[in-house]
């Protein structure tokens, strides 16, 4: 539980009739509030209580509105914070058990370093929550978490959110099995088969059973056609829908992705990439395949802007940054949107964040300002000739 250490809060608490245990509510007023990519409120407000969105827009009761500390953002735009679907935060060494490739029962939560130096770069890059995945160096890496940066330290928001698998070449090592892709595929299918048959027991097979029953989502690293094919075939054979991370050759398996209902986590898009990769988000959107942007956190906005430049609709791009990754992680009720009950993770821009000329004003996580300016005074509207 976060405490707002604002100097005035103490005074407000004493003065107010509110229960002494609660911190003061925040009333965020802004010219545009994007509750979700398809739901934008103009000249509206949010009420933040205890780090969550308590009320939205017209639902805010007047007495709560009066009691809350007002933060007036003028004409700016409020958007949900970015969700980075899969990252290891450069602590691969801690997240890859090198001796064995098959370790689905290891838990990233036990390796999470709340003072990881890379956490402090997330808020300036607009990332308010991220899925910390096991390293792609293990065929079955372990159980990942949803974590968030914080003012002084990071924290885990949801433990055991998803299971990480990997079929990429990093998972194949010449020093231990599997050394080849067919070996990796057979390793996974044998393990899933054993889990299905149910004769063997063990914590690792229990995790696989959860994946097959749908209790946990499976995220699989895969880049080439053969790897994607293997991931989708595994999903088909054992009845789960994989989320594919990487998917560089996704254009070769579009039909299968649609058929399985699989989703894709794309890597960083940069202007030097091939045009086919830059146009991939649009193709995925047209085919109805859910996808989100990931890769380098500081390049998320640029990836989305490049995708928009190559044909992706703005709404789809916003969704790919916020709501879709939250859904892929199974956390759509907690992050990725600014609905009632979601965490108060939002960003403040002075325009549409997909245009790079919009200035990033602030990042809030769990109702706490992490970076940027809290209020804006005397802000005149953005110029027409941007």
């Amino acid at each position, binding site marked *: 539980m976060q405490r707002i250490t604002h100097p005035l809060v103490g005074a407000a608490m004493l003065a107010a009739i509110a229960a002494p245990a609660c911190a003061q509510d925040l009333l965020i007023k802004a010219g545009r509030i994007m509750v979700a990519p398809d739901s934008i409120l103009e000249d509206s407000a949010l009420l933040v209580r205890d780090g969550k969105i308590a009320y939205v827009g017209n639902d805010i009761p007047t007495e709560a509105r009066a009691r809350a500390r007002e933060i007036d953002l003028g004409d700016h735009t409020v958007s949900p914070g970015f969700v980075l679907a899969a990252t290891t935060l450069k602590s691969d060494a801690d997240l890859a058990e090198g001796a064995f490739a098959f370790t689905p029962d290891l838990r990233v939560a036990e390796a999470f370093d709340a003072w990881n130096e890379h956490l402090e770069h997330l808020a300036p890059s607009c990332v308010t929550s991220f899925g910390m995945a096991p390293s792609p160096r293990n065929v079955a890496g372990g159980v990942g978490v949803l974590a968030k940066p914080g003012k002084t330290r990071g924290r885990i928001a949801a433990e055991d959110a998803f299971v990480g698998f990997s079929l990429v*070449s990093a998972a*194949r090592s*010449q*020093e*231990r*099995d*599997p*050394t*080849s*892709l*067919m*070996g990796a*595929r*057979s390793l996974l299918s*044998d393990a899933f088969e054993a889990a299905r*048959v149910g*004769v063997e027991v063990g914590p690792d097979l229990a995790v696989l059973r959860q994946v097959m029953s749908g209790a946990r989502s499976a995220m699989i690293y895969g880049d*080439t*056609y*053969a790897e994607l*094919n*293997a991931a989708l075939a595994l999903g088909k054979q054992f009845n789960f829908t994989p989320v594919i991370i990487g998917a560089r050759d996704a254009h*070769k398996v579009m*039909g299968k992705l649609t058929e399985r209902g699989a989703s894709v986590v794309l890597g960083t898009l940069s202007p030097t990439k091939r045009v086919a990769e830059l146009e991939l988000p649009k193709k995925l959107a047209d085919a109805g395949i859910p996808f989100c942007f990931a890769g380098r956190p500081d390049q998320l906005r640029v990836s989305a802007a490049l995708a928009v430049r190559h044909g992706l609709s703005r709404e789809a791009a916003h969704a790919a940054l916020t709501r879709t990754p939250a859904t892929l992680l199974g956390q759509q009720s907690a992050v990725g949107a600014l609905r009632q009950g979601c965490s108060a993770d939002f960003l403040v821009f002075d325009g549409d964040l997909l245009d790079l000329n919009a200035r990033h004003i602030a990042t809030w996580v769990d109702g706490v300002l992490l970076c940027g300016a809290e209020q804006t005074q005397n802000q005149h509207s953005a110029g027409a000739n941007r």
Partner: protein
Amino acid sequence: MIRHLLTCSFSVALASLAAAQQDVTAYTNARVLAGGRPSMTNATIVVAGGKIVAIGTDVAVPEGAGVVDCTDKTITPGLIDASFVPGISDNDANEQSDEVTPHLRILDSLDPEDPTFRRARRDGVTTAHVMPGTQNVIGGLGCVIKTHGDDPDAMVVKQDASVRIVMGSEPSMRNRAPRGGRVESMYYRRPTTRMGVIWAVRRAFYDAQEAMQKTQGAPDQGAPAPGIEVLTRVLQGKLTAVTTARSEQDLRTALRIAGEFGYQTVIDEAQDAYMVADELAAQSAVVMLGAPSATSVSGGGSRDGAAPRSGTVRALADKGIKFVITTGTNTRRLPLIREAMFAARNGLGPQQALDAITIEPAKLLGVDDRIGSLAAGKDADFVIWSQDPLDPAAVAESVYIDGKSVSQIR
């Protein structure tokens, strides 16, 4: 497009001819080497729906069909390479954590847009039999796959067509014997020598035999290890075992093991086959000659000491041993049609040389109901050559797979 018609039977295809006129094409005035029968001049082939509808010298061109005049050109069936090395890195073609992995499939590692497929297409090869690498004693299951297709799944002609067993020292080259008892990596294991390789094969088949006998009598105790199941099928004759053996001693060993366990094997590479021609004839083994034009073996297995001779094809043909010509693992290989050209140059008849790369591999792999020769009802996989294909100046001008042009030169 044409894809949905592939699944229709021949009669339905005929009936829908009238309806789908625009899919019909006739290739006229060609010299046709249909495979398995003498050549025809001024023949016509009618293709519809990805299949050959009619072929012969007196075939009438249907109404509304597109006509391609192939005067002075020769049409052969699409070539079949019975031992094709794809562009997969060695790391992915061999699962090194265990030397005996009969259940792994090389198909899992294949990319349909493999650049080696493109090169093969340009050289007239329409179907390839791809097997796992040669660094495992028993590498896994090979598949027969066409070199092009709209749908990668539709490219596969036969999924588990063979199991690859490798004789010689190549599978043991990476393993080390532990010295002083320290085992630093998984490569400190058997086999480290040629005898060890044979030991591994023998042990695998022995386990398979045991499993077979056990299940015949005992109640079901759960599924056997997947590798055992594959080898059981080999012993029962339901799956072809392809043994890669290059030097004379390895050839003899291959035949001996097959005799010992009672399965019929196909010998792959077989550079020294001329030395053991009698034994091969006695066991009526089928031989897949790897790059018979090469004068030395380089690449994997070059240490085995095989000494290829250009008279091998003649020796095998004279003894009546069934063989096919492939490109194989020798890095000195030539395109498949040039291998056939060298074979024809060295004593093989031209028709026999062409059959060795078309209908014979199809029969060997058990896919001759669909490919391997030009006959009504078979897939429309054929190549239009600028002149007789065994001529060194011949070029595969147009290559068709399932009636669709996949390579066009000039």
